[in-house]
């Protein structure tokens, strides 16, 4: 690949400042973009949550009103799932996966940028609904007929449908990209059973994305056709079926839950193993459990529909399938505990989040098994018990995992280590706040408080627990502010993080500088076992054994096309919504023309010579 490189050095325009970020195809920068965008949406979703909790602090409150409450509820769920949690996971996938497998980039750097920008503009479209005065208000599940044209005549749900459709393209592209990357781009010697657990988790997650997101695409298309072109998928008066939407949504929606939690499992495995300074206990069983969870995740969707009336046989089967998932999940929990057992544990902030994750997530899992019992679910259904359950899984599981990963990989992403003292304050406020908010909601649900209601009558035993819950939400908010302060303070620190700042790093990302140069590895390393970097360190080596000689490195060129393509889709979205055909066609045309340009003009990329590598070309 490198022998004749100099003869074909193509001059490539390299941008600086804003243009650099708009045109970048570097996975590390795209990771940072995902993190920034995801964090912004996380703050928006968090603000919505705080407003919801203020409304519910006392009975018969009139802080926001019923309509706004429905909008806040819908946007909080949709934003947190699709625009906050998934992008922050994508941030870590982008920042870490190519480094962990010893690659210079992902399989498709251009598609990677396109994926980010479509997600970003999809999310922007969804949130513009607040300014357009037409906010989606049919819940994040957007059940019909409530979300259909008859009962939701405004443009609110259109924003939901088109925003998610555009953002979904980005997610699907990401899934394909990371699957191809992990299959094709691993360094010599890195067999599948030597891959770090986070890489395994992302591999399986990507497969889930590839096979689950198209189902959502079809559901959104059907709902869009019903709303915009008078189709009858879900219009019962013309033969449509509302239960069809429930099936389609949850055939996507349940795997989506695992798309969220499996990466967190991966992060926790890395963090727990690093800070216990021990090999991950039961690595192969971890891999097997991850695959099994993903497989079973596709055949449990109807447990969201126990009260729909599918009949006792369907309910029984889905009940059992759901309970089965507790087995591989339990394998994971015990493996983490056995990894900690006898380890010499370092209680960093990342480790606190990692260790805090285990009991919290287990509680969410236990209520999950309770909910899986179909007859009991008739009692829990649509109460705060369900709200408590899925927040224990998603916040207590996924968000704890993300925070663990952020503190753990922050030095690798930015070259600066986050402040540990502030980090620990953040952990304790957030962790205590979380349990205050959601623990009481189990009991609110059990004594009968329905979810999704904007207010409630006094003297039903709900009052005190709702106050406690709201106080907890404020604590979580304060925790998040502490994190923001930490980020700001850290960004003024010197960029002095070592290659292996925790000193106990085990996988390849810790063998290269923090942040890595834009080509990641000057020489692609040779992997000689699981925990590749740890193995070398234990043999007294200071760096990985290279698998190739030093030479010029080929890089893909930056491109503005992904950004323009996403703007095209964004414009088309408005065109469809407001019946402006010229906008819809124009927007799609912009996107198609960009695809044409990309196909016609080959990207020759450019080479970084050995001399430039000596100077250290930093990302």
């Amino acid at each position, binding site marked *: 690949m490198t022998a004749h490189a100099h003869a074909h050095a193509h001059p490539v325009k390299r941008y600086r400042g804003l243009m650099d970020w708009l045109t970048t195809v570097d996975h590390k920068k795209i990771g940072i973009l995902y993190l920034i965008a995801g964090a912004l949406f996380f703050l928006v979703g968090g603000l919505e949550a705080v407003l919801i909790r203020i409304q519910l602090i006392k009975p018969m409150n009139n802080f926001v009103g019923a309509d706004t409450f429905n909008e806040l509820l819908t946007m909080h769920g949709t934003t947190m799932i699709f625009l906050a949690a998934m992008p922050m996971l994508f941030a870590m996938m982008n920042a870490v996966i190519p480094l962990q497998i010893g690659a210079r980039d992902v*399989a498709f750097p251009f598609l990677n940028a396109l994926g980010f920008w479509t997600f970003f503009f999809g999310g922007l479209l969804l949130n513009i609904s607040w300014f357009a005065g037409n906010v989606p208000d049919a819940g994040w599940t957007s059940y019909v007929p409530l979300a259909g044209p008859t009962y939701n005549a405004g443009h609110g749900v259109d924003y939901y449908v088109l925003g998610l459709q555009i953002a979904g393209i980005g997610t699907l592209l990401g899934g*394909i990209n990371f699957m*191809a990357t992990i299959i094709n781009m691993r360094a010599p010697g890195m067999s599948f059973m030597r891959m770090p657990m986070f890489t395994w988790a992302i591999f399986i997650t990507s497969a889930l994305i590839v096979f689950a997101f198209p*189902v959502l695409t079809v559901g959104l298309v059907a709902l869009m056709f019903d709303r915009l*072109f008078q*189709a009858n998928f879900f219009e019962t008066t013309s033969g449509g079926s509302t239960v069809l939407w429930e099936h389609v949504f949850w*055939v996507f929606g349940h795997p989506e839950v695992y798309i969220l939690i499996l990466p967190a499992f991966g992060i926790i495995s890395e963090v727990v193993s690093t800070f216990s300074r021990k090999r991950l206990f039961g690595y192969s069983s971890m891999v097997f459990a991850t695959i099994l969870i993903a497989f079973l995740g596709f055949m449990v969707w109807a447990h969201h529909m126990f009260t729909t009336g599918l009949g006792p046989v369907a309910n029984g089967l889905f009940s059992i399938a759901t309970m089965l998932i507790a087995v591989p999940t339990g394998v994971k929990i015990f493996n983490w505990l056995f990894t900690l057992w006898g380890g010499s544990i370092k209680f960093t902030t990342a480790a606190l989040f990692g260790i805090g994750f285990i009991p919290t997530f287990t509680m969410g899992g236990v209520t999950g098994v309770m909910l899986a019992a179909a007859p009991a679910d008739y009692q829990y259904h649509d109460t705060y018990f369900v709200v408590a359950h899925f927040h224990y899984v998603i916040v207590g599981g996924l968000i704890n995992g993300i925070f663990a990963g952020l503190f753990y990989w922050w030095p690798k992403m930015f070259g600066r280590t986050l402040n540990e003292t502030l980090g620990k304050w953040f952990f304790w406020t957030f962790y205590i706040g979380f349990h205050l908010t959601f623990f009481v909601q189990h009991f609110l649900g059990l004594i009968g408080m329905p979810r999704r209601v904007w207010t409630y009558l006094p003297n039903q035993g709900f009052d005190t627990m709702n106050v406690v819950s709201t106080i907890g939400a404020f604590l979580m908010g304060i925790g998040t502010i502490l994190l923001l302060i930490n980020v700001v303070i850290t960004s003024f620190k010197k960029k002095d993080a070592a290659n292996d700042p925790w000193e106990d790093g085990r996988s390849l990302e810790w063998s290269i500088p923090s942040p890595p140069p834009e080509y990641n590895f000057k020489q692609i390393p040779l992997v000689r076992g699981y925990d590749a970097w740890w193995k070398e360190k234990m043999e007294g080596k200071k760096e990985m054994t290279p698998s190739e000689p030093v030479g010029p490195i080929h890089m893909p060129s930056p491109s503005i096309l992904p950004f323009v393509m996403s703007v095209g889709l964004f414009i088309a979205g408005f065109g469809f919504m407001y019946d402006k055909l010229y906008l819809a066609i124009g927007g799609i045309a912009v996107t198609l023309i960009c695809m044409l340009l990309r196909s016609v003009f080959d990207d020759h990329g450019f080479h970084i010579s050995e001399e430039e590598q000596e100077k250290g070309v930093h990302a």
Partner: protein
Amino acid sequence: MSAHDLNGALPHEPEKATLEGRNKILGFWLFLGAETVLFGTLFSSYLALRHNIGDGPPASELFKLPTVFAATMILLTSSLMSVFAVQALHQKKVKPMIGWLVATIVLGLGFLGLEIYEFTEYIHEGHKMPTSAFSSSFYTLVGFHGAHVAFGVLWIGLLILQIMKKGLTVVTAPKIYVSAIYWHFIDVVWVFIFTVVYLMGKVG
């Protein structure tokens, strides 16, 4: 990109000669996996709704098997042309390859023409998008397939122009190969549509 290192002689199976080419082919197979789920969901929706015809005409009266059969044969033949194109690619015979590709898209256009004719007929018979749940799911499923054919025609057309300009290289070969996989995939989806929508529609 080692594309330019190969002076003149193309390697064996040029579509898989570079890492970029191999990535593209693997990524495209994964994409087709996603497409399979997409069409699977469209088929399921259609199967769930196909008996709910409202005031519209029933499938058994609506569908004209001779037209659909002709369309099926045209599309299958088109897929065969694309097989010949890939064979020509492997033998590095550029001119015949272009010929087979042109035949592929001409037949593809023929299929599209028949489909448009078929849809206009249906509309005259009162089978429109808003007629019933059956009609909505029919047009969405068959229309999605038609849109895939239309995109394929444009795409392969563009690739023919590129081959004429750039020749067959390790950069253009994976593009041809991938477009052929896409074309076969569309063909397979049509076989299912022919069976599930048209034949089952005729039987009841």
